[in-house]
């Protein structure tokens, strides 16, 4: 159940993360959290267990260090199920005043990375999920159970 919930959470993260990132690319300003993603309800606003193991409400995870900045997520439970995962904090260090130094980078080249969603056969990366995200989400879900 928890595993399933986490998997669903990650899928939601991809969508939310994509929106956040797209917004960031468009706006190119220092505010990383678009207002649409800011949570609107206080933590644990309701507590009537329905079918699932989680009680309805909005639960904030702790702030966790994602190495390049802090991540904090809120999980929204409705009808005993996760219906949304929101970012309360997202690393905002990726902004902008990029200093491309003039000093000796003889043949090296530089560019700002972009988010692509092209179809590929394989993905090379350090791993699949973000530990910081998982920590924050798991802790939020723990609150939803108790």
């Amino acid at each position: 159940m928890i595993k399933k919930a986490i998997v669903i959470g990650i899928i939601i993260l991809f969508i939310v993360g994509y929106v956040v990132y797209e917004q960031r690319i468009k706006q190119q300003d220092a505010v990383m959290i678009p207002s649409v993603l800011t949570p609107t309800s206080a933590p644990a606003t309701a507590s009537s267990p329905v079918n699932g193991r989680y009680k309805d409400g909005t639960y904030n995870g702790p702030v966790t260090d994602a190495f390049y900045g802090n991540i904090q997520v809120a999980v929204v439970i409705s009808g005993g199920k996760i219906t949304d995962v929101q970012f309360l904090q997202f690393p905002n260090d990726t902004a902008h005043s990029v200093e491309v130094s003039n000093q000796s980078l003889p043949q090296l080249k530089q560019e700002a990375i972009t988010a692509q969603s092209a179809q590929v056969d394989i993905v090379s990366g350090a791993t699949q999920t973000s530990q910081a995200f998982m920590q924050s989400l798991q802790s939020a879900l723990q609150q939803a159970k108790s």
Partner: protein
Amino acid sequence: MRQTQLIMGMPITVDLVHEKQSIFDEIFSFFRAVDRKFSPYKKGSEVSRINRNELLPNAYSKDMKTILSLAEQTKQQTNGYFDIWKNGVLDPSGLVKGWAVYRAAHILSKKRYEHFYINAGGDVQVSGCNEKGKQWTVGIQNPFLPGKIVKVLILLNKGVATSGTYIRGQHIYNPHNIDKHITDIVSITVVGPNIYEADRFATAAFAMGKNGIHFLERQKGLEGYMIDKKGIATYTSGFDSYVFTERN
């Protein structure tokens, strides 16, 4: 046909364009044997036995001797930035992964499999072409956004490996300064002639921090793409030749 199994604490995927079940079994049992021998987490592994001083060097297995000598060679080639000994404890995981994928690819090649890839937790060896007869495409994961990529590579008979801190925390350290965390860069992707070369030099280059990409520029046959914590990529002069464009 593609199969994935969890071995060595990571998903290992083997994709064979012309498949046979027995060959999948052989490859995955090879990885399991490597895990049994080299895992620092398994009490009965040879690595654990060495760390408990239960084995004299002349009793080491042939594979262990190979790994130890390859590690020593790599340490010299990387000015000491690659070291499988940390505070007197042996942990060859940084070398074993790339070596195991390389060996597995070799098993397939010897059996005349031409078209396949092996992906061990994001470290990849590609061979030949995909089902459509095109070269394999490999995305570089966006370190800030799970599920997104930053670049598409198109590769023929190459290895590609990425070292980074964004998932397992600080799993790579600078042997010259163990307590100093690597904080200025987020990931380095290396394309090499095979996964063994790509993996070991990705690990070493990452440990060098911002200097790693300069190190890669000086190595023949290796190209690198480094992403820093501000989302700026610095890449070697020949890297563009592997980047997928519409013209490919």
